[in-house]
């Protein structure tokens, strides 16, 4: 046992990240840290790393995910990324500290601290984290019905505490089961915070609705933390050099590329691109150009993405994204780019990159090409400074004063776009849109996001019987460590 523990203590640390407000970048850095392995399912994790500040809407899902860690387990909190500290009054975070009393608070990116917690946990110096929730049975099913399992006949009842799937038309003219399912906010293949309520017929999505944005500020919460497009938003009030903006754009697209490659099962290639993004400078132009060429030619990626998630001009107009431009619109042939009319770019010979197919592959090639183009612009821009105030072309589209941010419009694309897709294609499509739920949360003006004025997570959803708000194990998590009353 001693030998086993010693060996186990030197294994790569399996972590499951929970991304709070302002935590996305620090969470993505986990993928690049030596000695750490980010896992897709909480069942495979030993450490739960909460990055950034939790809103109240994220609290209950976090507790569910925590209880899905099989143990020995521990929770690390990396505050700071969202500007929060344990005592600044951020409600969700205080609740977290109350709900998971064993949380260890360290500095974001502190690998040594993380490894120390892991070592203590395996050597028994630190006890495994206690469950955050108690198991509540809801609705009652034991002893009900002819078999005592809550069901009645073929279609009736709530067998094992869960309503049966409904029947619905399928595209082949049959009536088949449709399972209502809520996936998110921590489903690893989706951007953090995204909650989708879908009907699943087999692995085909039928009827998709976007759930409440958990990053949305509620009264008493801090406003949303620094976005990944912070530099671009800052141009509203601050002069910046064109070179800095363009390197930031290239970095943004490379980080997206890294996430996307991971979603396509290419974790190692994703790591290489992620490392490149982290240390990116103007000098990397040839590397990024070569990368863009290679990705454009990659037959495997082409097969995985071409023809998937086609966003055409009509769909763009319907959600108003034709005003924002951005890579999604340019990949569908709309040549909108704020840089075209930006005086700061006048001498750089800028012309927007355009693809016409509008599918996930076009968006992949679009962003790869724009990353290369951005570095080339940065190289030529020298010391050109851009005065504040004008609309700026952000990595997702035009950011103009008093206009909604592009993420809200991109989110509004989802229901129509995903309906009828196979699950894998839906994941490819969602990834290809480069959504950011924090950016969308900042936007109060879009109708997709009905304003919430009061209340926390509702009572019903905190029961053990409906633990559907955690991504990876949505129907049957019921951790053994929970107490059945």
């Amino acid at each position: 046992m001693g030998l086993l523990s010693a060996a186990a203590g030197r294994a790569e640390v399996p972590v499951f990240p929970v991304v709070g407000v302002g935590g996305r970048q620090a969470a993505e850095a986990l993928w690049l840290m030596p000695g750490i392995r980010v896992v897709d399912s909480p069942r495979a994790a030993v450490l739960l790393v909460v990055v950034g500040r939790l809103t109240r809407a994220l609290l209950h899902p976090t507790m569910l995910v925590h209880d899905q860690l099989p143990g020995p387990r521990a929770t690390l909190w990396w505050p700071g990324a969202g500007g929060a500290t344990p005592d600044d009054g951020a409600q969700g975070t205080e609740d977290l500290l109350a709900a998971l009393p064993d949380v260890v608070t360290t500095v974001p990116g502190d690998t040594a601290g993380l490894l120390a917690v892991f070592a203590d946990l395996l050597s028994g110096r630190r006890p495994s984290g206690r469950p955050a929730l108690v198991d509540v049975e809801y609705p009652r099913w034991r002893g009900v019905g002819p078999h005592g399992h809550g069901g009645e006949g073929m279609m009736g009842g709530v067998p094992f505490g869960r309503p049966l799937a409904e029947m619905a038309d399928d595209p082949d003219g049959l009536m088949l089961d449709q399972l209502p399912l809520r996936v998110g906010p921590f489903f690893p293949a989706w951007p953090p915070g995204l909650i989708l309520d879908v009907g699943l017929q087999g692995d085909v999505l039928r009827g998709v609705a976007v759930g409440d944005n958990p990053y949305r500020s509620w009264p008493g919460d801090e406003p949303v933390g620094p976005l990944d497009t912070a530099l671009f938003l800052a141009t509203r009030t601050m002069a910046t050099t064109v070179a800095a903006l363009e390197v930031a754009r290239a970095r943004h697209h490379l980080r997206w590329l890294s996430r996307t490659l991971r979603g396509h099962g290419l974790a190692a290639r994703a790591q290489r691109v992620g490392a490149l993004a982290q240390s990116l400078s103007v000098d990397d132009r040839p590397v990024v150009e070569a990368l863009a060429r290679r990705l454009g030619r990659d037959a495997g990626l082409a097969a995985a993405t071409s023809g998937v998630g086609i966003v055409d001009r009509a769909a763009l107009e319907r959600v108003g994204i034709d005003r924002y431009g951005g890579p999604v619109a340019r990949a569908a042939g709309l040549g909108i780019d704020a840089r075209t009319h930006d005086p700061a770019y006048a001498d750089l010979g800028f012309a927007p990159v355009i693809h016409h197919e509008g599918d996930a592959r076009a968006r992949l090639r679009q962003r790869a090409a724009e990353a290369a183009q951005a570095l080339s612009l940065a190289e030529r821009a020298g010391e050109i400074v851009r005065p504040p105030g004008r609309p700026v072309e952000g990595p997702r589209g035009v950011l103009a004063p008093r206009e909604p941010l592009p993420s809200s419009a991109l989110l509004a694309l989802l229901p129509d776009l995903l309906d009828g897709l196979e699950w894998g294609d839906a994941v490819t499509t969602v990834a290809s849109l480069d959504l950011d739920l924090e950016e969308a949360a900042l936007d109060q003006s879009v109708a997709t996001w009905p304003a919430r004025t009061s209340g926390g997570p509702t009572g019903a959803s905190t029961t053990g019987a409906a633990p559907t708000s955690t991504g990876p194990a949505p129907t049957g998590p019921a951790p053994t460590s929970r107490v059945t009353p």
Partner: protein
Amino acid sequence: MNWSAPLPGVVLVGTVLVAGAYVASVLDAGAARLVAGRPLRVGELVAGPWREAALLARIRRSTTERPDAQTWALAPALLAAMAGVAVATVPLAPGVAVADVDDGIVLFGAAMAVVMVGAFLHGWSSNSVFPLVGGYRFVALALSYEMPLALVLIAAALPAQSLSVGAIVESQQGLWNVVRQPLGLPLFLVAGMGLAFWGPLGMSDGADLAGGTGVEASGPDRLAWALARHFVLVAVAVMGAAVFLGGWQGPGLPGALWMAIKTLVLLAVVVGVGHRVARIRLERFVVVAWAVLIPLALVDVFASGALAL
């Protein structure tokens, strides 16, 4: 030594599977580092699989609400057992075969068909959505793997005029099947990669399903499933080395060493492809399998038959 006696047979097959699984995971980690552009660190690579296994052994088992516990436990056992059956049919050196029966490749095919049952059960029995979707994905794809697999093996049996793996190895004296039937090995590897749900064909346990059939497994269960998957991969590589690369035949070195080298090469190819090629779309793969792979496999059979005549 009589390798077909029970005890030596089990020990031999077990050794091959465990050693192969270990080497495959070292190769996998090494390929990941190469592709990611990180330093190789041989010491870490060599110790890595043991450490991970030790960690998984330390993590607690977990369960879901109302799983089918028996079939859940059965699934990795089925995969491991069938991988063992497959390896048993292959002569690992001249005269060293546990069960070189005259219907060896049929036995291999039957074992691989039961692998499909194991993968489906692993997804179905945990009573959870993503594992279930993963299990159904495997079923939807399995026919597309089994058909070309069976056809290329039949083609390899033609020049040997026997279904025995030993006879197929003997028939490659002077000319390996990889040269005689150039379509055989690539098709076999694609199908084999599918059966071990590895790399681009790992759709049943894919990242888009957060791990598919394996989502709910933790600790020892996760270890068992990972081992079982590796065993199937090893079985495919061993069979590929025997049927297409001349098995134990080769100049200079002892037969067992040749067999090990050839198996390693195939494992390296599969593992490398896994890190380079993106997850394939279900729909597209089924179309490619039926419209391209199976016709190519038929061409392979007809051409091999014509040559054998």
